[in-house]
């Protein structure tokens, strides 16, 4: 079963606000458990920089017999809609449509795989659609939406800095959002609704709403780096809650921020192995 290339099925999935571009990695030999994995993408440019590695991981999963679905949420990638019209609730309904599609394909055991901001969407959807997911895999989850939003808004300031012009501050951008304006950062439109939703997200609060198995994979730049304090602290705080977290680290450069392609064989190998072990899937 391993080493067999999956069939790639690209298609447009009708969703609430428009058609969303999806790619299904269909295994040559589906697992007896009819396992499916639904991917929740990172935000904006992070997704573009992650596509290749996400596809590699999806292939690795499908070699085990799992069906993997990777979607471009409304307003992103090749999906319909403008980024400035995207909002969190629409994205949750995109996921709902994706889940229904997978079920129609015969998937009986569903896992969520969320990366960066997508990790928060995955947990939020597990909360919105309870008892529908067997386990959750997180790659480098965003811990505080407010911090993440500030880092994203900073791209505007940084672009002005590099271009040696008048720089607009994140404070000014937040004021524009508060006044109801959709702003533009690094080529991406950002509406007040979406910014507001992101700002309120906290990984800790979302983890408390989940009482299943969760595999948290934190990627470190090199072997001698420690895991980020915020991550290990949060895992510790969750110890006595119903959320059953397995925390693993692996060495991998932060490809979602880097301009050059990064090879990630260790990540793929570890992730696939840890996924199988944590969720005790029999292929």
């Amino acid at each position, binding site marked *: 079963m391993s080493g067999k290339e999956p069939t790639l099925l690209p298609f447009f999935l009708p969703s609430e606000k428009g058609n969303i571009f999806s790619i299904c990695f269909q295994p040559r030999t589906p697992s007896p458990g009819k396992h499916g994995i639904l991917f929740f993408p990172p935000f904006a440019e992070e997704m573009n920089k992650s596509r290749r590695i996400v596809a590699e991981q999806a292939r690795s999963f499908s070699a085990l017999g799992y069906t993997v679905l990777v979607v471009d949420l409304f307003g992103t990638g090749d999906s319909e809609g403008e980024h400035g019209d995207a909002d969190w609730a629409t994205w949750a309904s995109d996921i709902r449509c994706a889940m229904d599609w997978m079920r129609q394909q015969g998937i009986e055991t569903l896992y969520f795989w969320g990366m960066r901001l997508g990790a928060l969407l995955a947990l939020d959807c597990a909360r919105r659609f309870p008892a529908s997911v067997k386990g959750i895999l997180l790659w480098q989850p965003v811990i505080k939406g407010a911090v993440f939003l500030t880092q994203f808004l900073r791209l505007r300031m940084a672009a002005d800095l590099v271009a*040696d012009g008048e720089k607009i501050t994140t404070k000014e951008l937040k004021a524009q959002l508060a006044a109801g304006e959709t702003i533009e950062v690094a080529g991406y439109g950002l509406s007040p609704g979406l910014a507001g939703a992101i700002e309120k997200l906290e990984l800790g609060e979302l983890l408390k709403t989940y009482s299943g198995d969760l595999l948290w994979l934190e990627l470190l730049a090199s072997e001698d780096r420690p895991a980020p304090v915020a991550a290990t602290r949060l895992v510790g705080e969750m110890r006595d809650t119903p959320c059953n977290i397995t925390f693993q680290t692996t060495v991998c450069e932060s490809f979602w921020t880097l301009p050059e392609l990064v090879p990630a064989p260790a990540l793929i190998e570890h992730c696939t192995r840890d996924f199988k072990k944590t969720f005790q899937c029999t292929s």
Partner: protein
Amino acid sequence: MLDEVRSIVGDALQLGERTASLQEDTVLLGNLPELDSMAVVTVITALEEQYGFIVDDDEISAETFASLGSLTRFVQEKVSG
């Protein structure tokens, strides 16, 4: 601290072996093509996470990123201030 700041810049810009060649007076902004807006944000974020301070936009200017030395002095002031 210069060494730590050097590694952070080296990582963010994926300089690899070239990281070691960055000196205190090495010009960064305008000299390193890898230092684009994304890299500026990556460096600021990494410094915040490493040293535990928060950087306000008003504190950053082109001068901050003029050289490895100026960036290190900025970090020193944030840490002690």
